[in-house]
């Protein structure tokens, strides 16, 4: 009885937000698929999602959502939709004990709520960390509630059941870590490792992260009470192990060689592949083309924009942040930088090759003028080295140089070479 009442209460809450029970079960099916479990487990998923929302059986997982160096885009990506969908409602209603943006409270009382959650729910809550960790100026580059951001992270992460690094900034610094990175931004996993805190970090990249990815991960943690299967970058394996290119709806046009070379062209209207205008799909691992965005209405490539690789984030290398490795977005290559000199790889390669070609042409004129083109110059009568060493036996061309020259003759040979070079 109690259970029924709880469930009906739960569906009332959904309905009040314009989500039908059918929508909710569809979401659970999607979560089961994304988590790689059988569709038969949908009822368990539903139960897990309900408990995540906080209605069931004291199995509550509170969430602390800390914003570090972020643009709040990851929060916005699910909080600012005009009509809430099932996934948004789930995220809206988790036991979100602390969130700078979404909590009604602010200031001292909110900080106190956070402290309380950390103390009372130690080992049970999930820490969602949005934005980059700023190490600059001994952690003072980010200071919230009179505490350096790095200290806040350590305290919250130490006692968490698991840490979710949400968005590319949290994964490896993201655009916060792009050149010149004065605040020394880096990712959560990298920082915790350096600080010696051994806590599982689940990396969910993206700029912003897709709310469905977070929903799925939270549901998995509740459902299995363990961290979901992760790949070698600690990203959920089922979401971030294939490239955008692998699952792209325009892939057929790629294979056919049908491309958009210019925006506003006929090819663009035909929905051809965006590879020549800089699409990063072939080197970006994410399932965007499958889960899609904004309640599966569309996604970047469907809406006509090339992938800009926002999910590229190697958690152990903040220099490999997606902005650094992908800008300028509409070129096939990133820019390279030596000091203040910024250039495209192709320009340097072509210039160098052109110089070599020009040098050869000039050299060719030299060969022509010196009459060497018809068989080369006349051979020297005797090799200079033999001339200089009349006492030595003449060697053979099939005696290969020993790896470790030990005899004095070799050393003398070297000396002679140097001498010859000077002359």
């Amino acid at each position: 009885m109690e259970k029924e009442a709880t469930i009906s209460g739960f569906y009332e809450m959904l309905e009040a937000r314009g989500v039908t029970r059918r929508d909710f079960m569809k979401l659970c099916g999607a979560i089961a698929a994304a988590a790689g479990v059988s569709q038969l487990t949908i009822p368990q998923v539903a139960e897990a999602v309900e408990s995540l929302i906080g209605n069931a059986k004291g199995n509550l997982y509170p969430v602390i959502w800390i914003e570090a160096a972020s643009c709040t885009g990851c929060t916005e990506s699910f909080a600012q939709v005009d009509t809430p969908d099932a996934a948004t409602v789930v995220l809206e209603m988790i036991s979100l004990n602390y969130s700078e943006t979404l909590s009604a409270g602010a200031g001292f009382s909110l900080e106190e709520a956070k402290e309380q959650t950390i103390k009372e729910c130690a080992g049970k809550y999930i820490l969602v960390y949005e934005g980059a960790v700023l190490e600059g100026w001994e952690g003072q580059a980010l200071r919230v509630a009179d505490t350096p951001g790095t200290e806040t992270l350590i305290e919250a992460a130490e006692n968490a059941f698991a840490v979710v690094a949400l968005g590319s900034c949290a994964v490896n610094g993201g655009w916060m870590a792009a050149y010149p990175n004065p605040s020394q931004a880096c990712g959560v996993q990298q920082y915790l490792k350096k600080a010696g805190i051994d806590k599982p970090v689940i990396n969910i990249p993206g700029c912003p992260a897709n709310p469905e990815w977070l929903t799925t991960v939270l549901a998995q943690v509740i459902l299995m009470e363990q961290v979901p299967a992760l790949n070698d970058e600690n990203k959920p394996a089922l979401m971030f192990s294939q490239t955008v290119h692998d699952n792209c709806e325009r892939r057929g046009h790629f294979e056919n060689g049908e491309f958009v070379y210019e925006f506003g062209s006929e090819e663009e209207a035909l929905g051809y592949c965006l590879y020549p205008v800089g699409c990063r799909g072939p080197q970006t691992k994410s399932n965007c083309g499958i889960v899609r965005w904004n309640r599966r209405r569309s996604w970047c490539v469907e809406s006509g924009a090339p992938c800009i690789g926002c999910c590229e984030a190697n958690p152990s290398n903040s220099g490999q942040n997606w902005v650094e490795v992908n800008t300028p977005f509409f070129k096939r290559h990133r820019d390279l930088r030596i000091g203040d000199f910024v250039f495209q790889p192709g320009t340097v390669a072509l210039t160098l090759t052109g110089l070599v070609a020009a040098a050869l042409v000039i050299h060719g004129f030299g060969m022509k003028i010196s009459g060497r083109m018809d068989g080369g110059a006349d051979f020297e009568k005797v090799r200079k080295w033999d001339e200089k060493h009349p006492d030595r036996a003449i060697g053979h061309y099939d005696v290969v140089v020993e790896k470790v020259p030990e005899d004095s003759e070799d050393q003398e040979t070297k000396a002679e070479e140097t001498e010859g070079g000077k002359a």
Partner: protein
Amino acid sequence: MAHLAHYREAHPIPFVITHWINLVSMIFLIVTGFSIHFPFWPNFMGVARGVHVLCGIVLLLNCIVRVILAFVVKSAPTGGTRVLVADYKTWLPQKDNRHQLGAWIKYYLFLKKDHPLSAKLGVPQKISYLAIPLLIIVMAYTGFSLWGPIMDAPALKAGVNLVGGLMSMRIIHYFLMYVFIIFMFLHVYLANVEGFAPTKLMFLWREHGGLVYDPDQHSIIGEDDEGAKH
């Protein structure tokens, strides 16, 4: 007519074949590589990628075969002679050749008037030919780590992480292609600038008369004007 006679012993038939395979696959790789980097030609991408991967594998296998053959096949240590030695000995740096490096550089810079005597492969040539197999292996590694079906192999992924991601790997692969192009410019130029006889021997296995050389005495001992006769 100052050059040495070009005898088939300098380039036995297996090496003529591996050289042809190198040339053809490199040209295919460069043309398709350019169009994979940026699809200049429409309706070509699928073909370009297939040909590129195939030629990459062919080039790598051919490189391995060529290195193994160097230990099996015998070839002449210099031009102008039919004396045979194990081919790898003509390939690796030779004790009695390396002191000619200065002479070669001076000759090419017009600082030395007469032509240096040397082994079949001059010192600068030897350096570049030894670098090419290494370059082919690095090129294959960078290429395979960009190729979707196998890019997740741990041995490839380790390299990708080392260089800072797939974009960096792509740029390295791209730059290395220009190393091949620059090598080909130099190679074609130096092989042909003093006459096309070496090219005729290498591609058509056609001999050409010239000076006869005694590799034991390092001196010109005569002249063979009889062309292809053995």
